[in-house]
Structure formats: C-alpha cells, structure tokens
C-alpha cells in the first residue's frame, strides 16, 4: 500500500505540456529519488503534489485520499511539506520567523517549540543565527533553513528539491546525512536531485524523468547498473 501515488498526471504551463503522464509511488518509510536533466519536470512533479500546479488530468492520492484538487495551503495539513528548489527563504524574516512559518498550520505551541529545538540540534548554525534575517545567511545555511522550515510542518512526507544545488561538497555530505537521519526517524522522503551519485547513496528507489515522462524506474542498485543511467547521470 503506497503512501503517495501519483497516477498518470498531466500538467501544463499555458501551452507547455510539462508533465506527460507521470506515475510515481512512494511507500511509507522510503527515500525515493527523482533524477533527470534540467527541464525534465522534476520540480513540476513536486509542485503538483503540493498543490501549486494543478494537474489537467490524472490524480494524486495520499494515504487513500485524493489531494490533487486541494489548494496548496491545505495540502500541508495533510502531512506534506516541501523544501523548494533554490531554497526560497523569506529573506526579510528572521531565521526563527522562517521556522515559525513552516509551522503555520499548527496550533500546538509546545510541540512547535520541541520541533524547533530538534531543527536547532540538527543545524546548530541556525540557532546561532536565529535573530538574523534569512537574506543574510550563506547558501548552505539557507539550505539548512529551507529543510528545517519544511520539518517544522511535522510532515510525514517530505519533498526535497535539489538540496545539494550550489553547495560545497562538505556541506552536501552534511545535508545528506541529515536526510538519512530524518528518514531513520520516520519521515518518508521524495528527493529530487541532479547529483545522481549522492541521491543513489541515500535513496532506496528511484525514477528517471525525461521531458515530462518517467523513462526508467527501479531500486537504486538496478538504476546504478543501468548503462543508460551510467552514461547520462553518473558520468560513466
């Protein structure tokens, strides 16, 4: 029984047919990765799940409930949070306010405090900068904040869009260690990456997207062995 099922979803930006029948499953407890070249439709897939992009046809089912007609702000309440591509930190809000926004739908003040504690334990740099506005953080710190902010929703399904983009290799390792840790603590993760090598090191299964279609899927081991994947994404 899949936690998330994306079934044959088509989306359009005006006349641009961005997703041409995408189907993806994510089981509870998994890390699933979406890889693919720029413009393949990875971000659009995440945004369709979050309700920012409406499918013209197809459906998206989260734990037996169709969510593709819900407005984005209600999808969050269903237990889905996204750390978007390019981080999209609120540059004029402080680090703490950014985290509070992540918990916007929640009313349980005590638990919110606990979760903020958890984010700060995971990313001590954020605690040091708690009163600083987001715009003054370094790229790596902003990425930590984007992930921490998504965690503040206490999602059961966490969507990460290119968390390694533009980061130094050491920071990338840090971020991926956190991804693995979150997963071990029970969060299901759908991870979009251009860095297939890193993605395969943490994920269980993966999908390869090309121009709005799923062209390959399988366990990480299967994908690693696939000659086309090796040629196109692993530089071999």
């Amino acid at each position, binding site marked *: 029984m899949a936690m998330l099922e994306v079934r044959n979803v088509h989306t359009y930006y005006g006349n641009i047919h961005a997703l041409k029948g995408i189907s993806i499953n994510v089981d509870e407890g998994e890390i699933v990765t979406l890889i693919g070249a720029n413009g393949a439709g990875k971000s659009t897939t995440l945004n369709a799940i979050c309700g*920012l992009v409406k499918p013209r046809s197809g459906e998206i089912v989260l734990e037996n409930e169709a969510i593709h007609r819900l407005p984005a*702000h209600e999808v969050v309440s269903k237990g889905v949070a996204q750390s978007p591509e390019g981080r999209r930190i609120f540059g004029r*809000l402080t680090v703490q306010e950014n985290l509070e926004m992540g918990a916007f739908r929640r009313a349980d003040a005590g638990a919110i405090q606990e979760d903020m504690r958890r984010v700060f334990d995971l990313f001590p740099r954020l605690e040091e900068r708690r009163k600083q506005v987001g715009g003054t953080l370094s790229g790596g710190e902003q990425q930590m904040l984007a992930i921490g902010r998504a965690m503040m929703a206490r999602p059961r399904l966490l969507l990460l869009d290119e968390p390694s983009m533009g980061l130094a290799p050491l920071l990338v390792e840090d971020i991926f260690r956190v991804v693995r840790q979150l997963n071990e603590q029970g969060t299901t993760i759908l991870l979009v990456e251009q860095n297939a090598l890193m993605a395969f090191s943490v994920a269980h299964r993966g999908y390869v997207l090309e121009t709005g279609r799923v062209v390959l899927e399988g366990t990480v081991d299967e994908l690693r062995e696939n000659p086309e994947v090796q040629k196109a994404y692993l530089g071999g």
Partner: protein
Amino acid sequence: MEAEASRPKQSFNVGRWIRPLIGVVVLAFILWRFWNVLFVQQVYGPDTWMRFAISGIILGGVYAVIALGYTLVYGILFMINFAHGDVMMLGAFAGFFTLEALRGTGLLNQSIFWSILSVIIAFLVGMVAATVIAVVLERVAYRPLRGAPRLVPLISAIGASLFLENAAQLVFGAQRQTYSNPTIIERNVGWTFHIGEGDVLLTYTGVLTFVLSVLLMIGLALLVQRTKMGKAMRAVAEDKQTAALMGIDVDQVISTTFAISGALAGAAGVMWGLHMGIIYHFVGFLPGLKAFTAAVLGGIGNIPGAMMGGLTLGIFEALGPAVLGMPFQLKDVLAFSILVLVLIFRPTGLLGEVLSEKKA
C-alpha cells in the same frame, strides 16, 4: 544595428544632465525664498511658525495613517489602490451618520461619559464600515484580475474610485455635511499658549487626532512585527508561492491586508471629520492623493517609510508655503511637486530600496 545601439546611450546622457540641473534649480529656488522669508521680509513671528508646525504635525499624522493603507496593499500586491481615499471618505460618512444618530437621541452630550462613548462608537462604526468596503473592493475589483498585467488592476482601481465617489454622491447627496462633534471636543477649541507676540491654539480635536494616529501606527507596527498574521503578511509580500507551501492561505492574507488598510482609512476618515469638520463625497480624494505621495516619499511598500513620509509631507505642506514665501493656495502644488521630485531623484523613496529588487 549601430544606430540602434547608440540611441539609448544618447538619451541616457541627456538624463544625466537633466537630473542635476533640476536639482540645482530647485535647491537655489528654495534657498533664495527661504532667505527672503527669514531674513529680508521677516513676515512671520514665532507664534505663526508654531501654528503652522502644529497644523502640519496633525495633518501629517492623518496622512501617515492613510499612507499605511497604500503601502500595506502595495507591499503585498504591488498595486496602487487608488480607491483608498474613497474608502476613507465612506468611513468618514459612517462616523458622521453615527454621530448624527447619537445626537438625535440626545446621548451625544448627555454626559462626559456618553460623549466619550459616542466618539468611540463613531470610530468603531467608521472603521468597521471602511473595513467591509475595502474587503469587498478587493473581492470584486481586484481579485478577479490577479495575475493580469500590472496596469489592469490599476485601471480597475481608478474605476472603483470613480464608482465609490459617484455612488456616495448619489446616496448622500452632493452637499457638504458638518460633523457634529460632542461639545467636549468642539472644533477650534482647546488649550491656548502665549508664544512671542500672539496666542497659539492647540485644539482638542487636533490632539485627539494626533494621539490616535500615533496609537494606530504603533498598533500596526506591533501587528506586523509580532503576530502570526503579521508574519504571514510579510511572508506573502515576499513570495506568495512559498507562503502557500508553508500552509498560508494567500487569499485570506490578502483579504486581511485590505481589511487592515480599510480600518486605518476608516479611522482617518472619522479623524478628518472631527478635526476638519466638513465632509462630502469627494473628501477622500485630496488626502488620498497626498497620502499616496507620502507613501512614495517614504518608499512605497515600506511601513516605517509611510509613517515618516506622512509626517514629513504634513509638515512640509503646512510650513512649505510660508518658508518659500508663496501663497498658501499653492500648498497642494508644493505637496505634489514632492511626488515629482521623489520620482525623479529617488524613485524608491527615502527609506525604500527593499522592494526595488523584485517588483514582479
């Protein structure tokens, strides 16, 4: 190709000449008039200057409160709500009818307690009415145009402004109405101070207006800085899509922003009525335009900027004609020259720069 490339460069050079030229001319003019007024003619004594300053500060407070409404809406939707002055006018009318009704029942001046309560009720009714109108305005005139090119909601706003003015004329008539203040805050009555050669009057309505303006500004600052809704407003102002990802209902936040801007305009309308005394269907036009100027002066979209811009403009309007030795009828011309000057020299306003990087 060659000609194409050189043309914009040429016009850029002309622009570079024009700005300092205008700057020098304006500055020289101001200094010359200033010198004349202060040292050559010595037209005004200290009491007169004091009177100008007081009226400017009071007016500035009202401008600031109205300007906040422009700036809040601009900060979130990047649109100028040109109907904002008319929302203020309708708030003024709501307060007017409330006071009329209370006077009719005899409660208005029954006791000090009832007089104070009447004024409070008038403010509440004015603010609630203006809030409702602002929210409906957004729903009907602006929301359907969300996502359209930026000029489109602007045109809709001008249409809404004309509609509200004409509807008010139709419903309330074209005649000027006199606000019935309770006797404890009669207009043009207050404390008198002896300064220099003359007496300076500090009116009760003026003090009330200024104190209320300051309270409203403090309240708004706290709301935007401290409350969950205020933080959501700032998040939506920065990035609507990401705000929605956080679970923020962007439409609701926009509605709330219009509600707050409406409440401020309603309060300003009642203050205007109590202090200035006369209202009519067109009464929101000039203060609206002035407050818009104030918001641009402070940097539109910037909350402290709107407060500062309002006070600056009010004081400038009151002192400007005297300082420059010009007839007082020219005060509006002076106020609007500020708009032109700001747009030429510092389009982002005095405190602005925040929004310039991502306007779309």
